[in-house]
């Protein structure tokens, strides 16, 4: 029997992963809780279709070494900077969008069975079984479309706002609709303020959409379609009033919202708690002055009481939202606490939004330090799970971490907040990419400043770069922490991180890094020292590369060049070698040459570095470099030039310092002929430093030509 099945062709093509299962289906299941007789199986434990999957998913933790799973797990494709993270994710979504566009434009290709025999060709048929609504082609509505009320219902149900308006117009406007459809269209328009929302389908776009701060200005479209539909509705039901009032209140058309509410009240139309909540949220726009506003707030609450409406948690957050937006001060804070206390008595626990507004009200940056966060966190930690109920709930964690970092400066509390965010499913409350990044900025800053060093490095290891890429200001903080901790190894790595994160062009940051490297160079292991030297040489090379690119591409805004101090730091780091063949010497020469050519801003903060370099170079056997360094010192007019030139010359000529001094003092004329060109250059430098003029007055007409000849002799 089995072998008689003829496999149709399309099935043979499928790659079948076949799970073989033997079941004891079809046999009676007993109803007792446990196996009653020891033979029949106990009843099945009730579970939803996805419960097992969720249980399995809960066993998987986060992997700090991997990028988010939306990116390809491949070294070439793992994004390492914020810019790349954004562009990679959005590129992938652009591809999905393109696919969706083709699917919608050529819907007929996806609803036909192409392998049908010619006679039956083009029978409408969905390839998918079961058909998934979200994957099916979306209808496109234009002026020629033939639409029915069914289409309007579909567009409203799927929140396709522009399509809904189009269908509405095609159907002939307000007059040709039944009340039910009118109401649902009005609700849709009011909810989105006649603006097409970003579809839920485009996760990345929503995640990365620039979090424009909610503008507290009237964006409600006065006289728009929603208003028209509302005026055309007769009789105006309670739902219609609710929709239009909430829409207006949401988009800050406070006055008209209150007027309409008054109108409804006069007509005896009952309003719901949510309507009152939205009215509470915008009550401040009606009045000026704190006392009047508080009175208005209280009067609305009293009205709710008269209507027999009991407040819910949204009432609380709406009140607090209003209060927190009216400024700060003792009076408002007491009112807020009264509201919270009263709601507690009614058994209403504050939601995350309510806590967010409380934090806004109490923890002002300039204000006195008030620690309400500890109690809030303690309360939240005791809750079984935190559910997101309002859009503003996502503001809580970022604000709480900001308070920990700036207001309270308490690293322990910050850790508790972070632990709370990581608990269970709570990470969904982090909001979007922008908020997430600010959250981590606060966390990393407070940890760098106040946590023990080991803890900081541990946190950085888990966060950077896959979860969070530090911004320049945070990077500065990190570099400072690493410097204090004396982690030369990590500092050397920090340079490559700067390059990868795209901060390498920020001169200030690079200079900070260089001085940090210098400060903790002396007490590092040899291996780390070599690494640091490598990093320093790389910094110089990177700067030159950038300059070349700039010249080639003719950019408008030139990047800032490294300062003289930074260059001298590079010199100090790279010259720490006894080997003449060390490749770093070329870097040193390069750096000194740049100093000499005045390609760096300012003068070195520590000229002693160059004096040491001159001596070292002379010892190793690089007299040209030594001469160059000394000449630069002398030309810049540093006091160290004299001593340095004497010592360098002493090393060069292998004579004690006193003898060299006398030599320089006395035999001015004969020096030119008897000395090696480099030594002569050093002698020149000595005289420039001493007298402000070169050795021979006759040849001193052009110091620049002199230096040119010197540099050319260096090249030989």
């Amino acid at each position, binding site marked *: 029997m089995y072998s008689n099945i003829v496999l149709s062709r399309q*099935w043979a093509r499928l790659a079948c992963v076949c799970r073989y299962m033997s079941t004891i*289906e*079809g046999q009676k299941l007993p109803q007792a809780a446990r196996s009653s007789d*020891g*033979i029949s*199986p106990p009843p099945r434990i009730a579970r939803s279709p996805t419960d097992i999957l969720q249980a399995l998913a809960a066993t998987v933790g986060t992997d700090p070494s991997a990028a988010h799973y939306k990116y390809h797990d491949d070294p070439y494709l793992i994004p390492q900077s914020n810019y790349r993270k954004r562009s990679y994710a959005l590129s992938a979504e652009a591809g999905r969008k393109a696919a969706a566009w083709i699917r919608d434009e050529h819907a007929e290709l996806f609803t036909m069975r192409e392998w049908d025999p010619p006679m039956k060709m083009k029978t409408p048929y969905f390839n*998918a079984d079961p058909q998934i609504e979200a994957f099916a082609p979306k209808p496109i509505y234009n002026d020629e479309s033939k639409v029915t009320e069914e289409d309007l219902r579909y567009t409203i149900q799927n929140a396709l706002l522009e399509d809904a308006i189009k269908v509405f117009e095609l159907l002939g406007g307000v007059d040709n609709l039944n009340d039910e459809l009118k109401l649902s269209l009005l609700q849709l328009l009011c909810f989105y303020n006649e603006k097409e929302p970003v579809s839920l389908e485009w996760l990345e776009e929503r995640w990365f959409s620039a979090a424009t701060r909610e503008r507290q200005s009237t964006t409600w479209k006065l006289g728009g379609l929603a208003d028209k539909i509302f005026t055309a509705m007769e009789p105006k039901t309670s739902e219609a009033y609710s929709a239009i009032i909430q829409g207006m209140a949401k988009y800050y058309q406070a006055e008209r919202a209150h007027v309409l509410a008054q109108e409804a009240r006069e007509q005896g139309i009952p309003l719901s708690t949510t309507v009152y909540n939205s009215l509470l949220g915008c009550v401040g726009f009606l009045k000026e002055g704190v006392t009047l506003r508080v009175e208005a707030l209280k009067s609305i609450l009293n009205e709710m009481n008269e209507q027999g409406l009991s407040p819910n948690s949204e009432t609380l957050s709406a009140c607090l939202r209003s209060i927190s937006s009216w400024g700060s001060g003792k009076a408002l804070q007491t009112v807020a606490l009264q509201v919270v206390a009263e709601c507690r008595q009614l058994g209403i626990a504050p939601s995350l939004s309510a806590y967010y507004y409380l934090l806004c009200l109490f923890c002002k940056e300039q204000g006195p330090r008030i620690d309400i966060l500890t109690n809030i966190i303690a309360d939240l930690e005791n809750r079984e799970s935190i559910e997101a109920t309002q859009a503003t709930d996502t503001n809580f964690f970022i604000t709480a971490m900001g308070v920990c970092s700036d207001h309270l400066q308490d690293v322990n509390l910050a850790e508790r907040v972070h632990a709370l965010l990581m608990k269970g499913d709570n990470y969904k409350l982090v909001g979007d990419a922008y908020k997430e990044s600010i959250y981590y900025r606060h966390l990393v800053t407070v940890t760098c400043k106040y946590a023990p060093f080991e803890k900081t490095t541990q946190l950085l290891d888990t966060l950077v770069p896959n979860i969070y890429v530090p911004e320049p200001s945070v990077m500065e903080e990190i570099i400072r922490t690493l410097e204090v901790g004396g982690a030369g190894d990590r500092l050397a790595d920090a340079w490559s991180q700067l390059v990868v994160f795209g901060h390498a062009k920020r001169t200030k940051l690079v200079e900070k890094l260089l001085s940090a490297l210098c400060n903790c160079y002396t007490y590092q292991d040899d291996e780390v020292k070599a690494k640091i030297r490598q990093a320093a040489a790389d910094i110089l090379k990177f700067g030159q590369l950038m300059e070349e690119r700039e010249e080639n591409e003719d950019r408008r805004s030139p990047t800032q060049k490294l300062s003289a101090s930074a260059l001298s730091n590079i010199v100090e780091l790279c010259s720490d070698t006894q080997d003449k063949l060390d490749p770093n010497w070329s870097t040193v020469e390069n750096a000194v040459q740049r100093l000499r050519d005045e390609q760096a801003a300012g003068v070195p903060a520590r000229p002693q570095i160059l004096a040491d370099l001159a001596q070292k170079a002379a010892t190793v056997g690089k007299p040209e470099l030594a001469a160059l360094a000394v000449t630069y010192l002398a030309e810049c007019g540093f006091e160290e030039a004299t001593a340095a030139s004497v010592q360098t010359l002493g090393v060069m000529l292998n004579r004690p310092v006193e003898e060299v001094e006398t030599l320089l003092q006395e035999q001015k004329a004969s020096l030119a002929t008897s000395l090696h060109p480099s030594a002569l250059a050093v002698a020149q430098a000595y005289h420039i430093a001493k007298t402000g003029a070169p050795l021979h007055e006759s040849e001193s007409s052009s110091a620049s030509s002199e230096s040119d000849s010197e540099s050319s002799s260096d090249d030989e």
Partner: protein
Amino acid sequence: MSVFIRHYNPGSVYNAKIWRFASTTAETPKLTNGEDDEEFRVLDILKKRDKLQRRAPRKADVPPDRAEKMRTDQKWGDVWPGPKSFHPSSVPLPIRQGYVPKGQAPPGKKANAELMKIPNFLHLTPPVIKSQCEAIKKFCTEWPKLLNSEEAIEKHYPLEIITSDYCHASPVIRNPLSRIVILRIKLSDLKLDKHARDKFLRLVGDRYDGQTDLVTITADRCPVRRQNLDYVNYLLTACYHESWNYEDWEGDKTLQDMEYYDFDMNQSKRNLVNWHLLCLNEENNFSDEEIKLYDVASIPNATEYIESVSSLFNDGESDATLKKYDTSVRKLLGLPDKKIVT
């Protein structure tokens, strides 16, 4: 210059290209005149070499593999949570696989198609399996206590239903093969008497496997599994009850209709009884029915004889059956054992 002209001649097809050739190479002979006059110059019409040179090698600024940064105490299940094909940069193991050239090691893990081809079980390491089992334990019910052995299970759940579920990448999650239902039951678990058993076997036909004593009924004629399941149950029930039915015509079965040799119905029994009675000098006037019901157990050595005769007819003639027949007949008749003549 001769090269130049010779190539110029061939015709209009290559004109443009040759012009290019001419324009670029016109100067080169002058420059290198003294040095390599002798060398044969290669005509490079398509300018392949130039193109290759022009293409600047792209800088590959690739971060190191993330496997290098992994801590030794990490949870591997987090790194590799689900089945996927091998990826060298995220597996911190020095794996090698592939064709081994003589005297060399097998190819390493990077750019190794062999490693990507085979399915790996990196997502199912023992700790992961353990934790997953712990996670889904809360959905499991207790195993019935008395079902502690295969025999007990077979005894209490004699009926076995086999179905298959399929999982594949396609817009369709249905697979027509999943409608097939197989029912299996041991014949000995059915309460059947001799007649019913015989009839049942005739009804079932080749769905009965004598070696394992299993009756296997497969149904695939209905489009849905549920229907097929009902159908196999119906088939089993119908066959069972039908086999207990006596139809009128079943009484008409004669000796010729027997599908096997039944000693009681055959001449041999009459002969045996007659012979036995003769030996005892008793009256012999039994009818056919009486002969059939006569208990042969009273006859010494008769059971063995009956057995050997039955097996001779049922199993066919062979050395073994014939020999058995020989010995049993000698015993029955009291003859001496066969002497093997050498």
